[in-house]
């Protein structure tokens, strides 16, 4: 065992309080999800029993996963497809544009940059209604693309890439030009390989944003064909009688991919969120 010095005792105590504050609600989520008996869930809510699993039944999970009206697998596939398509397209297009803005020679860079900075100030929430109508006019409502494309237009992502690219050493770019790289090749072979930290930062933040998106998908999807998990989950609240066991099983099932994704990328994730704003 590690020897604790007195200075570390108080912070450790706080850390334990913090961990409990975070974990208790989550333990409750898991506990309820493992309890197949709705009546029992209701009765035990509020007592210690709702935090420590008494039964380990996967019945709620099986019900959630095999519900024919809410095809969990389909929702999961939709969510994954939407999330990863958005991520890939967003990172590709936005980094490319940011590289031009940061290192290019085009005279329109300045007005474009001002436009990007201005759009950063537009709250996305205030745009969904006109966006919805535009999607309607274009006949794109209820599709994958209507959920992917708006996420690709991301001024924040351009801005973060721009900050990173403008801090690339000038000499590195020049060395590449002397080596005979075209502008695109410098982007592709020099800038992008060096951008792993900022890519993972943007990827993780956008992943969370899209994976958890709620408002827009509610508005543009009509059924399981294209709906993501977050909307499917809220449908459980719509029925008159909330089945807490199923809701929590759904919640756990939805959270697990995110937690896995996070565990895989944990180091980059922490580093990236930390670098996402402050240093700019």
């Amino acid at each position: 065992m590690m020897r604790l010095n007195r200075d570390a005792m108080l912070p450790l105590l706080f850390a334990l309080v913090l961990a409990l504050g975070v974990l208790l609600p989550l333990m409750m989520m898991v506990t309820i999800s493992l309890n197949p008996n709705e009546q029992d869930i209701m009765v035990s809510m509020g007592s210690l029993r709702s935090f420590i699993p008494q039964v380990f039944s996967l019945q709620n999970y099986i019900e959630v996963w095999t519900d024919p009206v809410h095809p969990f697998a389909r929702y999961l596939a939709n969510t994954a497809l939407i999330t990863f398509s958005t991520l890939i397209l967003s990172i590709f297009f936005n980094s490319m544009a940011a590289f031009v803005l940061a290192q290019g020679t085009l005279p329109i860079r300045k007005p474009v940059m001002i436009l990007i900075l201005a759009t950063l100030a537009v709250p996305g929430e205030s745009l969904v209604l006109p966006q919805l109508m535009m999607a309607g006019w274009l006949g794109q409502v209820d599709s994958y693309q209507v959920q992917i494309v708006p996420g690709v237009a991301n001024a924040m992502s351009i801005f973060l890439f721009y900050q990173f690219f403008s801090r690339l050493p000038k000499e590195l770019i020049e060395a590449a030009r002397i080596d005979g790289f075209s502008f695109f090749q410098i982007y592709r072979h020099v800038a992008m390989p060096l951008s792993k930290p900022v890519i993972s930062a943007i990827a993780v933040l956008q992943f969370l944003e899209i994976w958890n998106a709620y408002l827009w998908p509610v508005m543009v999807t009509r059924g399981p064909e294209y709906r993501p998990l977050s909307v499917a989950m809220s449908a459980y609240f719509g029925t008159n009688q909330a089945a807490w066991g199923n809701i929590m099983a759904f919640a756990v099932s939805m959270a697990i991919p995110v937690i896995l994704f996070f565990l895989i990328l944990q180091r980059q994730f922490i580093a990236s969120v930390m670098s996402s704003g402050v240093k700019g």
Partner: protein
Amino acid sequence: MNRILYSGVALATCMMSSHALAGQLTAWVIDGDSEKPYFTQLQETFNAKYGAEGITLNVVPIPSYNEAIQAATLSGGLPDVIMLDGPNMASVAWAGTIQPIGDLLDPAILEDLLPAIKAQGTYGPQEEFYFVSPYDSGTILWGNKAMLEKAGVRIPTSVDDAWTRAEMGEALAKLAALPEVEWPLDVKMNYGAGEWMTYGFSPFAQSNGGDIIDRQTWTAEGTINSDANVDTLTTLQDWNKAGYIVPASAGDNKFYGEKTAALSWVGNWMWPAHREGLGDDLVLIPPPAFGEAGPISANGGWGWAVPSSSSNLADVKVFLNYAMSSEQVAAYADTTGYVPSRASAIPLSKTYGEGGAGELFAKLAACCAVVRPVHPAYPVITNAWATAVVNVLSGDVDVKSELDRAAKTIDQDIADNDGYPPFGQ
């Protein structure tokens, strides 16, 4: 195993386009636990009967149904047949999203429909038939017999001896005094400011001589904020202040689950849960007479409509007449606990036939149901009223000014839409 297989089939059908091939019908239906078995049955029996003739039916339950319809309306992706909530029909018909179905339905069926159901489906000054519901619904007071008896409260058995408002207030006071009772009356505040607030609370207003809009002039001012309505809602507010009403955040199960509420004011759909929860203790009590008009029950419900974009009308006709056949209407009622919408189906129903447990519901539907206003502004009307009711029942707000605001909202909307022509002309 069956379940997994079934979900696979459902998944596959979901992935298929909803646009109709000839002979292939798609119907969107609401995604409710109590309706699910009926729709499964509907699809199976329909396909068994008409599959050989080359007509197949695909019933798709849609979660978050209203949002889905809105999205589909915007994108033009509506299927052959949809379900709508009855009072919203006028708004959708006005927008041109659905088409009249009076010519598709067998005249014998039209003839056989309960009057209130017919009224619910009839739109506009031309009185065209746009919408047909396989069931009717009603609200009722559900009671916990043991508690009522313990508190020494008289239990009415028919519309004629229904409680008066004063009597109900006394009953609540007595029930509240019981140690096992936390809040005596559950009025489903947990449903939120949605359709329930109109469905469930406008009957009290109508019983007291009020309404939510004048059905001749289509103005709300002077009707929704009438003295009668202020009086009605003030009583409810007083009951809430006295601690008689289960609060929104207490959850759904105080009456049938935890049994800390003695009465519940809610519709037929809770029948299965109530029956299971209370067993022999469950007693059906007619709606209270809030005023001169006596007991009033809500009515109406979800039903079938045909989008304007639907072109496969020959097959749609087959489907509608099948879905509205006496057998299917009775089956819907028996599965869900609702009242059959066809007079000829009522005797077929186990629950609502003579001497059935739900006879009271059937009688209410015949005597005391008031259709919610069939007007394109209904979504705004119900929203304004529901907001007022929820506000009144969740705190110490001024009833009159809440209702004044509702009146203003509604009249402003009607004016904004030029009176919703051809209405108001």
